[in-house]
């Protein structure tokens, strides 16, 4: 079960999506922080030490792929990264997996219930 100690960082440039995800995830009692680009994400992640990062791909300043290259998920055993994107480029998404993301989800396919399930799934196995 979720506890206050489990921390989730959401990185997306779309404030409406950030707000929705934050509301949905926080409703299950997790600690949630948000960042609106990869650079801000790196800064927040360094201090916040999240258990799970939900990461968008197409973002200004620093995109999700560059974030993954800098963050190096393989060196952060305690942090899992799930990529969320509307990009149909399977190559890009597969690239994200190679860079250490554990899963990818197409944004338009995800309903609020799916987000909860996803978070629960990856935090339960950590």
């Amino acid at each position, binding site marked *: 079960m979720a506890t206050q100690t489990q921390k989730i960082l959401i990185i997306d440039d779309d404030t*409406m*999506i950030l707000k929705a995800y934050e509301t*949905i995830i926080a409703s299950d009692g997790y600690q949630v922080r948000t960042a609106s680009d990869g650079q801000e994400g790196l800064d927040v992640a360094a201090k916040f030490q999240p258990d799970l990062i939900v990461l968008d791909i197409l973002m200004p300043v620093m995109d999700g792929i560059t974030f993954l290259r800098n963050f190096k998920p393989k060196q952060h055993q305690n942090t899992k990264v799930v990529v969320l994107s509307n990009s*149909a480029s399977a*190559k890009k998404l597969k690239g994200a997996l190679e860079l250490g993301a554990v899963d990818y989800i*197409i944004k338009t396919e*995800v309903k*609020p219930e799916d987000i909860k399930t996803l978070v629960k799934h990856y935090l339960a196995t950590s």
Partner: protein
Amino acid sequence: MRLRHRLFAVAALVVLVAIAFGGTSYILLRQYQSALYKERISNQIAFEVLQRRLLAGDYLLYPTERAKAQWQIRQQTVEQLIQGNLQIFASEKEKAYTLIIQQNTADTRENFDELVKVSESNQNVISDQATALSSLLSFNAQSAVTNATELQEINQHEAATALSRLIMLFSLAGTIFLAVLASGFKYIWHSAEELEKLDQTKDEFVSLASHQLRTPLTSIMLYSGMLADGYGGKLKSKQQELLDVVLFSTDRMRELVRVLLNIARVEAGRVTIQPKATDLHQVLKDILDEQKPKAAEKNITLIDTTTARIPIIHTDQNLLKELYTNPISNAIKYTPPKGTVTVKLELKDKMVFASVQDTGYGIPKREQRKIFTKFYRGTNIAKKEVVGTGLGLYLFKLVAENLGGEVGFTSTENKGSKFWFTLPLAGGPSRTGNTELEHTKGVA
């Protein structure tokens, strides 16, 4: 379209220039030819009158029969040349000189004949009469030479002018030709650049649309989903009812974006085709499972009548799923409740023949040839208000062609349709693209 207009304009210009050049060069060539001919004749006349002048001198010195005969031959030649070619000297100046030469020639003959008479009767050419005649003869003969030389010069000048005009025309035509060639090349180069840009724009549209269309769509979906899940408080049943319409339409919108993007990707020829060993019959079974709930809603029976053992073929599974889902979801959509959809896989001429037969509305005969056209929807089904975009069959055909197959159908209005596609048993083509098709469920 604009490229074709440009090419047409360039071609028309080239044809016009060619006609103008051809016509002008023909006229100038004819002029040059006639000037050369006149020059030749006037040269001959000048030569002959000079020879005659010299022979007259010979005769005056030694009035022999041989000298007389030689003079007479020359005289005749000069007369014939002038008489025969009088009409070719068309200009006033030429005519005037020719007539003077003709007159001189006639006078000379008269002088000579008289001189012959005198010399033959007196046996003495040194008489006064003979001296007078011979000087008259000399004068007339010399006058003919002078005038012939003048005529010769006129014609030489004319020939030179005609030649220089021809040279000018050719250099002008060469310049125009090079200019047209350069502008034509510029146009084509420019148009090719535009086409490349257009291609790039199309590519950019795919990625832009996938991001820009979907960003608001994602928010709509999330927030209406949150509303439905009670994040904004418990909904009354009427509110839930209204929200269901929003959720349903959002689903359709998502599907429509997927279809539009798939079409853009296939049309751009950028879809990756990666043939893999595929059990076609298993793919069919999976699609039937996926479509079963929709069929059940309308009480439609799905039947698989395949009897042949379908071998493993090499084809792109992603494209195949898109290809095969389309006619099945269409059949369910356009068949009234309690109908039947029958699917079958057969082997025919080194091809797998996949057919989907329904007991649906069918396609009116007069509209059947338009069926695979983008955005086409049957008038009979549009009246039934079944949702649709007219894009599915267009994509169906494109995808089949990408996999090396063909599509077709037979249909009778109010009885049903049978759509089919083929795939080569030998396997389909492969391509390294930069995008993949997204799976659609035939909701739009």
